[in-house]
């Protein structure tokens, strides 16, 4: 009997490999994200991928688009306006400071490298793409450390707020970057930003209003999921047709659904949050299939530069942002909790493969981000623990396993 290579086989194998990786990571207490990536790496061309004929080019784009749309929708609806007011100036200031300085640092360092790397592939487009991706942070790793060490206090709360907020900033900056790179002149960029960004926000708000109204009619919980997925897919398709930014449309949809539904929005988002892990398995294993050992070795110095510049930018940016917003004792340690980078960064990078202007270089960016994800997921908990130790907000360590 011969099993033909197919889309179903590719997706199925990646999901099952991710599942096994998840079980093993819990059993051996290793970062889950690293396990998912390794599961995907097993199916890369240099390993099993070529013999099993797993090529994601035909289905990867659709899967990435839908998965990232779900994540953008969840991120958009994660915070309400009253929460934004209550969360405090320190969180908002630090999140903006950390995102902007990380972006500036990565862009500067990679641009300098590109300048001296005469004849190399690294260029300003790669620098700009890496810089915007550098703004995102993965909350899971940081939350796990705060839980493990029973951390409590104002710095802990600030870190939590920032890790939950800065993916939204990252998506916003990434969308701006795509518009800028996709246009030839500055004037053309400005008009496109107006169309793509404002169009996306207004269209997302309109769809959010319609979805909120529809949601009130859907009383049966089992019908909620088809409604949500339906609205996400329709919004995605229409935003593509009108050249609105997909990510911003979906984030705006999530934000306005939560705004129009108020407390009833919880039911919509809790239904979809079950899918977050599913989406991340797809992202990481799919990203893993693009692994290329040669890029790791050829661009090892760029990977290290990216990691250091991002970490420094996050640490100093969070401190600067906090000091501008409101003086807070121990604010210099906030940034230490912002080192992990995973799901959203990998998701954004995967979309680059299908963006005009990135066809040739997305492979390099993806491998740099995979390497950084592994590095930051392993080192992130140590940074977080160190920072919180300095603030005195760590409690007694739990004996439970890492999640």
């Amino acid at each position: 009997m011969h099993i033909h290579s197919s889309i179903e086989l590719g997706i199925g194998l990646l999901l099952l490999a991710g599942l096994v990786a998840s079980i093993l990571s819990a059993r051996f207490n290793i970062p889950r994200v690293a396990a998912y990536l390794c599961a995907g790496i097993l199916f890369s061309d240099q390993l099993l991928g070529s013999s099993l004929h797993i090529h994601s080019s035909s289905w990867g784009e659709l899967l990435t688009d839908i998965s990232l749309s779900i994540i953008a929708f969840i991120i958009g609806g994660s915070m309400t306006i009253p929460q934004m007011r209550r969360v405090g100036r320190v969180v908002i200031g630090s999140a903006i400071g950390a995102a902007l300085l990380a972006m500036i640092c990565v862009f500067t360092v990679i641009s300098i490298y590109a300048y001296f790397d005469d004849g190399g592939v690294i260029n300003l487009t790669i620098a700009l793409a890496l810089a915007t991706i550098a703004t995102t942070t993965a909350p899971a790793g940081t939350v796990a450390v705060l839980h493990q060490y029973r951390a409590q206090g104002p710095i802990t709360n600030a870190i939590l707020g920032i890790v939950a907020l800065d993916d939204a900033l990252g998506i916003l900056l990434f969308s701006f970057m795509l518009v800028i790179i996709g246009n030839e002149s500055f004037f053309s960029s400005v008009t496109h930003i107006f169309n793509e960004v404002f169009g996306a926000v207004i269209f997302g708000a309109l769809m959010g209003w319609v979805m909120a109204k529809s949601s009130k009619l859907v009383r049966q919980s089992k019908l909620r999921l088809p409604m949500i997925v339906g609205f996400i897919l329709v919004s995605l398709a229409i935003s593509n047709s009108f050249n609105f930014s997909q990510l911003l449309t979906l984030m705006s949809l999530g934000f306005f659904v939560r705004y129009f539904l108020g407390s009833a929005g919880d039911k919509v988002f809790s239904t979809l949050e079950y899918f977050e892990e599913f989406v991340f398995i797809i992202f990481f294993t799919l990203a893993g299939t693009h692994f290329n050992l040669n890029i790791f070795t050829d661009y090892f110095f760029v990977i290290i530069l990216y990691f250091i510049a991002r970490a420094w930018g996050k640490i100093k940016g969070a401190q600067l942002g906090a000091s501008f917003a409101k003086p807070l004792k121990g604010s210099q340690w906030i940034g230490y909790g912002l080192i992990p980078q995973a799901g959203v960064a990998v998701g954004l990078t995967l979309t680059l493969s299908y963006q005009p202007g990135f066809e040739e270089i997305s492979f390099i960016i993806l491998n740099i981000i995979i390497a950084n994800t592994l590095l930051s997921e392993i080192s992130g908990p140590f940074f977080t623990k160190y920072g919180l130790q300095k603030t005195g907000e760590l409690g007694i360590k739990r004996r439970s396993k890492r999640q």
Partner: protein
Amino acid sequence: MKVTEWLQKHTAKYCQLLIDEEIETILNKVIQHPQQIDYYVINHEQQVVGYIPLNKLANYVFAEHQPAQTRRQIFERIASGNAEELMTRHFSFCYEDEELDDITHRFIENNLKLIPVLDQDKKLISYIDIFPLIKESHNNLL
């Protein structure tokens, strides 16, 4: 049997939360009514406008003990709001003049343990607990 008749036999103490009460006040009230599992929220006209399940309050109280949290849960943890933001607006209820047989299916369909009883002005009169209903139904079968 009418709901009113049932309530005469089965009185219940209940806790109402005001729509603009903050989380600390809510918790202070809730711990005095351990028998309840859903807490009804009323507006300034005393009408019931939603409810907060105990599970949601437990999520807030034990937030720091959860090893994994979604972004939404993180914001609820660090920027918790008042009863209006916490409550669920859609809820099952019954009127005092309804037949008891007509409301039992609402427990099953909506996976509820309590159903609030309202008067025609949407003000809370009491609630019906599923446990005495099961007990009575079981005794009648024996």
